[in-house]
């Protein structure tokens, strides 16, 4: 199937990002196509390369970047949500692109399934 994924919450504060990462890995392992992951609301905070978790903890941005670059998945960071939260292209990591909310509508039109990871 052609999957669309939406991440609505910030990394570490909520489990939403972790669940989305595990789900994406499992979907790819089964040969499904992820059309796009749309980072929305506090989800935009997944994209910052300034993230430095403790050494014994997972690095959520790097986990995303690894999945995205290995599988050539488009990661869109909602521009309005990002600006409100201090995320711009000086801080976004490799693999993340800032884009408009229209790309979420387009995803809803194109995807066979849409899965929201939220609070």
């Amino acid at each position: 199937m052609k999957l669309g994924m939406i991440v609505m919450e910030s990394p570490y504060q909520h489990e939403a990002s972790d669940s989305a990462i595990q789900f994406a890995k499992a979907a790819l392992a089964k040969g499904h196509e992820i059309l796009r992951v749309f980072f929305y609301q506090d989800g935009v905070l997944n994209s910052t390369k300034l993230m430095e978790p403790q050494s014994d903890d997972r690095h959520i941005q790097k986990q995303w970047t690894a999945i995205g670059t290995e599988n050539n998945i488009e990661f869109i960071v909602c521009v309005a949500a990002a600006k409100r939260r201090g995320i711009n292209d000086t801080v976004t990591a490799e693999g993340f692109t800032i884009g408009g909310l229209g790309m979420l509508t387009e995803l809803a039109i194109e995807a066979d399934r849409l899965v929201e990871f939220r609070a």
Partner: protein
Amino acid sequence: MNDEMAKLMVVFRTAPYGSIYSFEGLENVLIMGAYDQDVSVLFIDDGVFAIKKGMDNSGTGIKDFSPTFRALEAYDIEKIFIDRTSMESRGLTKDDLVIDAELIESDAVEKMMEEQKNFFMF
């Protein structure tokens, strides 16, 4: 409406202001209005509070987005539904709301979701 159009829906189910979900749901409806699709809007649970009349943000300074719901018609979004039970159990009537919405029963909600190509929960 034609067969090329996708059926898309935004479901509002959280209270406004306490979290940003409700505001972002509205932002989405407005964007979807620009894509010439078959868009509908549904209010359930605490989502009905987003369209309560009489909001006044002078004490908090948080952006009051309720007037924007009145703009939905201008975007040709006319399929607006509200779960009757959610509204009534929250002490509201249609007269309390900033927009006109068609009342539906709770057992119609899941079917309405199933009929969409995709839908969003906010």
